[in-house]
């Protein structure tokens, strides 16, 4: 699996040269510049216009003036100016940034790693990236330059730190200690994947059909709960809904999926009994294989050391 792109280039629109600043963008930047206090960070209205043009070009591409204006007004302009000023090396901006986020970054590192030393190490490494120690071709490139103001700067820092933690874990997970391999043998090495059991293609087709009929949010809830082992409270926080809503929807989804799969199998020529047997047999066959695969590939299990079996982990349902 590829590492998570911190810059998000693959999904976002291709970065293009900043378009010529229109009069509308200049005027909007002038309005926003007075509110952001960019003058104290040596960020002029023209600089802000350039930043806004870059961000709007990244997410909107070619859009109408109204859309660009609404988009720019939805940005966290003050934090965007601060981040870009820090990326430009403004000392005053760094003072403000450190005063605001230094302690918070340590707290976030501790929350993510759940270990003080690991959390501090993660925070320090992020500081280095934010300051731009790892420059390319001798040029200092700050990670803050990629902040676009879509969300809060604090949330962005948390997300960036979480991405770094996931990447580190994945890199560490795939490594096997040579000493351990020497001393203990090959028991810690990644086992050879067992040959996947043969699955009735009709069952796969019926399952894919039923999953395709779900909304993206429903698939997200199913994956987060049954694959990642997230609790109802965690899923509820991610979707900003109440966990009772998640519980109700999940229960309804599981029942509905079973019915849809059985109905799909029936449409593919299986009787009701045959469809139920195929579903049950498939469960028995896939249980061990799924455990193995989840244990290897699912980062959610490794992060939280939770059981693969979903029902026993959540008491809130």
């Amino acid at each position, binding site marked *: 699996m590829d590492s998570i792109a911190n810059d998000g280039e693959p999904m976002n629109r291709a970065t293009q040269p900043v378009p010529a600043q229109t009069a509308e963008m200049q005027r909007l930047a002038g309005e926003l510049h007075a509110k952001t206090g960019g003058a104290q960070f040596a960020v002029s209205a023209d600089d802000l216009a350039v930043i806004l043009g870059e961000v709007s070009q990244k997410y909107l591409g070619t859009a109408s003036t109204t859309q660009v204006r609404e988009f720019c007004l939805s940005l966290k302009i003050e934090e965007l100016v601060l981040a870009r000023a820090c990326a430009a090396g403004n000392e005053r901006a760094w003072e403000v940034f450190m005063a605001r986020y230094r302690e918070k970054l340590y707290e976030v590192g501790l929350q993510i790693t759940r270990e003080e030393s690991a959390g501090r190490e993660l925070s320090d490494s992020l500081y280095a990236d934010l300051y731009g120690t790892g420059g390319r071709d001798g040029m200092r490139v700050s990670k803050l330059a990629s902040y676009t*103001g879509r969300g809060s700067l604090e949330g962005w820092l948390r997300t960036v730190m979480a991405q770094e933690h996931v990447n580190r874990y994945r890199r560490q997970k795939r490594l096997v200690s040579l000493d351990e391999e020497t001393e203990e043998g090959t028991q810690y090495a990644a086992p050879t994947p067992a040959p996947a059991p043969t699955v009735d293609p009709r069952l796969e087709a019926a399952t894919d059909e039923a999953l395709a009929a779900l909304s993206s949010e429903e698939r997200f809830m*199913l994956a987060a709960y049954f694959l990642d082992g997230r609790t109802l409270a965690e899923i509820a926080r991610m979707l900003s809904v109440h966990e009772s809503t998640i519980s109700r929807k999940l229960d309804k989804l*599981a029942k509905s999926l079973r019915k849809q799969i059985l109905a799909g199998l029936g449409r593919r020529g299986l009787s009701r009994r045959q469809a139920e047997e195929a579903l049950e047999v498939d469960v028995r066959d896939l249980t061990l294989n799924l455990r193995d695969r989840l244990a290897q590939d699912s980062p959610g299990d490794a992060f939280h050391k939770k059981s693969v079996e979903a029902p026993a982990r959540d008491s809130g349902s």
Partner: protein
Amino acid sequence: MEQLPNIVRERLKAQAGGDHPDADLLTAFAEQALPEQERSRVLTHLSRCADCRDVVALAVPPPTGSVSLDTARSVSWFQWRVLRWGAAVACVVIVGSAVLWKREAMAPKSASIAVVREQEQAEQQAYERSDRLAAASPSPQIPKSITSATRSETDKDAGQLRDRVLNSEVSPKLPATPPSPGQAQPMLDEKKQVVGGALGAGAASRTLIAGMKKHGAEGWAAAPAPMVAETKKPVPESRAAADLTVSGKSTEMVQVESAVAATAPEPAPSSTLDNELSADKREAPGKAKVANGAMAGLVGSESVEVVANQATRSEETVAQKMDRSKLRRSLVSRWTISADGQLQHSIDAGQTWQPVTVAEKASFRALSANGPDIWVGGAAGLLYHSRDSGFTWTQVKPSFAGTNLGADISAIEFTDILHGKITTANGEVWTTEDAGQTWRKQ
């Protein structure tokens, strides 16, 4: 929680995630700051990418210790298991409040009814005592004040009458301050003027006579002194009578006698009804009576002779309370004629009966009670009328076309206070439509 088939897990896992969103989009997704279209795209990726789900899960700030406790506590109040009990408690509270409110709304009514009953009982007891005193009094004639209000309606419903009594339909017409003995003479003079004025101008609604001409509906209210109608009674020495013929028709004569207490000592005002009644009775025999006016009214060819005694009262409050008591008495009184022709009334729903002296040696055979309006008739056309539940009586002598009612009255039937019929032993039927002011013989 419903189990998810493992094939579903496998197929969910097998779905391609595609390109990863950048940290800004994931942050904006976690903070609910994305437009719906972008949110849907990010959700689609998240449903297929376990790594990004982990990032979002880690990026979402967990609730802090104290905040999480508070949040959990506050959230728990909105769980259905709590809300359903809350709803049940709310229903109980609402129903209870409604019941209490209803009881409170009804409480004043019951309290007022209780007060009315207490007043009724007190007044009944007062009248019982007054009647006993009247029976034990050496004077056969106990002056009784005439109520200043006579009812024009034919209310038989005791509830309506009770309401009118409580609403003080009578009391506002009475003078606010009781006249002193020194004020008696000026009031008497005023009375004469009123009577005289009534004769000339016809506005006799404030005089006794005019009040009777107007069917007794009202008109006694302005009389400053209570009056006692005593017929067949020796006229006191000081009484002066004057006969007046109006409009050349001499078939009608009304004699009005007014008595003023000039020399009798005024009893001290008392707060109790018993004392007031006793004082009233004590001063009655010593009152000097002065004829203050007479008038004659003419309606057709009928004639009515009314003889009334007026007695001044020093305490208007006593009269006011008496008026209320009289009307109250009419609500609870029952009337009957004993075997020996004696009029009797009961104030306790017929359990006990007290004799009522209408006139000396009068024997009656017929009775009609219509609220406070009482008619009794006897031999030789003897007919008496009381508008105040028997406190005062007026002898009425019906006449029609020069013929007086002289036969024995066998039946009196009044459908209301205005319309009545008298049947005599010899088959004569006398009818009136104006409370006895005029009569027709059939």
